[in-house]
């Protein structure tokens, strides 16, 4: 079994202007909930969550003597990470199938990235 990060990227507008009472948004929440339940039932679930707006981000650089704290995201870009799943899957084909279902549920493209293997477990 390997772990994969399924990440969902969006723009700030997706976050700030979202109307929680919009039926389309309500349906998206429900679909993601159903998808999450399915992940848990099938044993793929590790962790998942949605993030707040990118404006809430803070960068901490602890590489020097004193940690430097800066307001804002690490990289300025139009699109940023909005939420993610960490899943367990035997291979990429399985992960891609789950990503397709997740993408349909959350109505956004999903990026699939494998986690580095634990050298001790190889």
């Amino acid at each position, binding site marked *: 079994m390997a772990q994969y990060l399924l990440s969902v990227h969006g723009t700030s507008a997706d976050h700030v202007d979202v109307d929680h009472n919009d039926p389309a948004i309500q349906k998206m929440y429900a679909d993601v909930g159903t998808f999450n339940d399915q992940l848990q039932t099938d044993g793929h679930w590790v962790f998942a969550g949605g993030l707040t707006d990118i404006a809430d981000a803070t960068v901490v650089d602890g590489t020097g003597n004193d940690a430097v704290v800066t307001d804002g995201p690490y990289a300025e870009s139009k699109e940023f990470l909005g939420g993610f799943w960490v899943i367990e899957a035997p*291979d990429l*084909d399985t992960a891609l199938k789950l990503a397709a279902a997740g993408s349909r549920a959350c109505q956004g493209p999903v990026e699939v990235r494998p986690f580095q293997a634990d050298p001790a477990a190889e």
Partner: protein
Amino acid sequence: MTDGSLGGRIEGIYRDEYGRVVASLARRFGDLDIAEDAAGEALLAALERWPDDGVPPNPGGWLTTTATRRAIDRIRRENLRDAKHQAAVMIDDPTPHEPTGIVEDDRLRLIFVCCHPALAPEARVALALRLLGGLTVAEIARAFLVPETTMARRITRAKAKIKAARIPFRVPDADDVTDRRATVLAVLYLIFNEGYLSSSGDPIRTELTGEAIRLGRLVHDLLPDDGEAAGLLALMLLIEARKRSRVAGGNPAEIAHLTRRREQLHNSR
């Protein structure tokens, strides 16, 4: 290429059998590096042994068996987790040909892995030429008109992704076959092309055109109603039928010397 010496003959056999050996080991061990390295070690063993023992009656089988043993040795040496257990299963494998689903041929299956949509399009064909056609990186680079280092990087990156992302050596299902059909056909066409007018050595390399036609037949069998698969096979057979008229004295013949009389349909199986 093929000088009359035994060494040249062994390398010729190795070249012909390379795709078969690598595809068989990739299926069994699920690891391209292990498959390729073991195939290379089997060649060294053949160069050592065959001059004394003679070329075995089934050289392809000999190479595959030797490569399989070398691969198992390597897995043991590297002491991977449960390696001994795995190796025991592999040595005592009562079903070397597991259920293979709708794509039964190891080499065709490996092409479908090379054509995985998660791999960069420009890497898919290169990887297939390397693994199935046994072409050197230099030959592939020439065919793509890119520097050798660029091509080496492209192939290495694709293999690294197969490993890191765990692209499975899985039996393609009916959906995969349909989805990847166009890429698979493109790969077969390029393998044929490289055999039709090789970028190195002999102008025509029949082992490559023959392999492309063989795999083309398999794809056509998988997708009998697919016009593109049938069309590609027909095109390759037609060109192959004119093969003898295209060469004169080891070089491509001039157009003025092409005669219909020398064209023969020797593919009408």
